């Protein structure tokens, strides 16, 4: 699974790094309980601003993209839940 976390200025201001930290923690939770999860690799990438925040007046940051699906106003709990649901057996 590929998780891209935008660390552009807007997303960083509104907590992107804390999302990255939480995903790192989640990796530990998963590795300690590996029987219950697929062996699919969890690939996390910090990426530059995708322009989502620039082309709108709406509030969209932070942005996280999981396997091509974009999450707006992402929070660590919504992101972690999505990841866990995808790889939990």
């Amino acid at each position, binding site marked *: 699974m590929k998780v891209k976390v935008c660390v552009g200025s807007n997303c960083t*201001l509104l907590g992107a790094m804390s999302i990255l930290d939480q995903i790192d923690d989640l990796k530990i939770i998963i590795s300690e309980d590996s029987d219950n999860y697929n062996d699919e690799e969890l690939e996390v990438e910090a990426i530059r601003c995708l322009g989502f925040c620039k082309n709108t007046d709406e509030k969209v940051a932070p942005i996280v993209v999981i396997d091509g699906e974009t999450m707006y106003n992402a929070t660590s709990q919504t992101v972690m839940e999505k990841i866990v649901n995808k790889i939990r057996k």
Partner: protein
Amino acid sequence: MKESYVDLVRIRRQVFAKVAKLAYDGADLSELEKASFEILPGEVATYRDSIFRERAIVDERLRLTLGLNARKPTEHHRVTDGINDVDVDKIQFIEPLINVITFACEACPTKQFYVTDNCRKCLAHPCTNVCPTNAVSIGRKRAIIDLDKCIKCGRCKDTCPYSAIVQYDRPCAAACGVNAIESDYLGRAEINMDRCVSCGNCIIQCPYGAISDKSQIYQLIKALKSNDHMYAIVAPSFLGQFGPLASPVQIFEGIKQLGFEDAIEVSLGADITTLREANEFLERVPNEIPYMGTSCCNSWTIMVEKLFPDQFEYISDSSSPMVETAKYIKKNDPDAKIAFIGPCISKKLEALREDVKDYVHFVITFEELMGMFVAKGIELSEIEVSEKIQDASSLGRGYAIAGGVAEAVKQVALSMDPSKEINVEGASTLHECVKLMRVAKSGKRNGYLLEGMACSGGCIAGPGTLASLNRVRKAVIDFKNQADIKSPLENKIIDENLS
């Protein structure tokens, strides 16, 4: 700000970005009336009982970020009241720096021991047996603690086999290392300014975001727009703060794009402070003073001044790295206006000191700086850069991490006088700092170099940071290792005779 307080972090930082935007756009400050609505639109409350209260609190944050006092809830004020006083491009801090937004405070109960549902009224009931004041009895449903009798020793809590007794404290008071949090007539937090050392710990720990400092971003941006002798001096904990893709040079370039003439590492000033403190230690300890405390953490020095006044003369006379860096710039450009950018709230207070105010004109935090990057639309990771930053030694760059200051001073002192024996002890929370000073006062640390830092882990954990401690620690160590020189003694930028 404590990262897991996600909603609070977001509101706080949106306010920074908003105020920075108003300043860059040169907007009329009557626009401020609308700002809280733009940050929290709609009619449905998300965080508290009512959206109107939420917005009123955001209004208060906007005022504090503009450098204004919070309003008194007992008097009628418009959000814009007093604005003409701050709509200027000079330093303008109206004390107090740390403010309780009274109507954001939920008046959490003060410290007490509390029996939860876990209690089974067990036959052994050790809680009653260990209580030194006979305050615990067994009630109908569970054990009961007589709060009038309780002396808060915690023995009942420690002995309960069911973890049924918990200790409860208001987060702000628990976070305060100098017992400065008191209560007003409604039980809300009130800060005793005679004790407060402006460390900012209560600000980051309050789960309601009820305490906030003031900011100077508005005045700083106005100055940036009109003055071309503006310099940024950047604290050694800046590494990793602005996202994993922003390199140190990109951060410095980004700062220049905000309107600064140049950006300099405060680690350069740390090198100078190290040389001065090493000399001072060799000269004065133990003949003139029994031990020496470092001087770079402002909250630590104010704490000693307020709580241990008779020991204050044992704190080093050397200026802090912030001030040394500013002095270095002033020497080359006497018209320089200097902004310190760091993790620290206490530095805002240090900059008001008589002997500092002509050197350091603005102090903002990394969080506030990030708000400025956003307001100006700067994407750090996309900036083209070539050269490296080489203002300071590896030891100077290590000041950001607890233990780093004493380590630098000790190493340099030892290269000056290898025969000297130097013992070092450090404390890196305000609670620990107070304990360390008690021990030092009793004469048990004579001959020592004492390093005091108010933040847990050092400046890398300051209240104005954005990234987690581990992230920043790693980035600081990387940057330390990239320094061309190891020791301040090799730093060619420092030319004056320091002794």
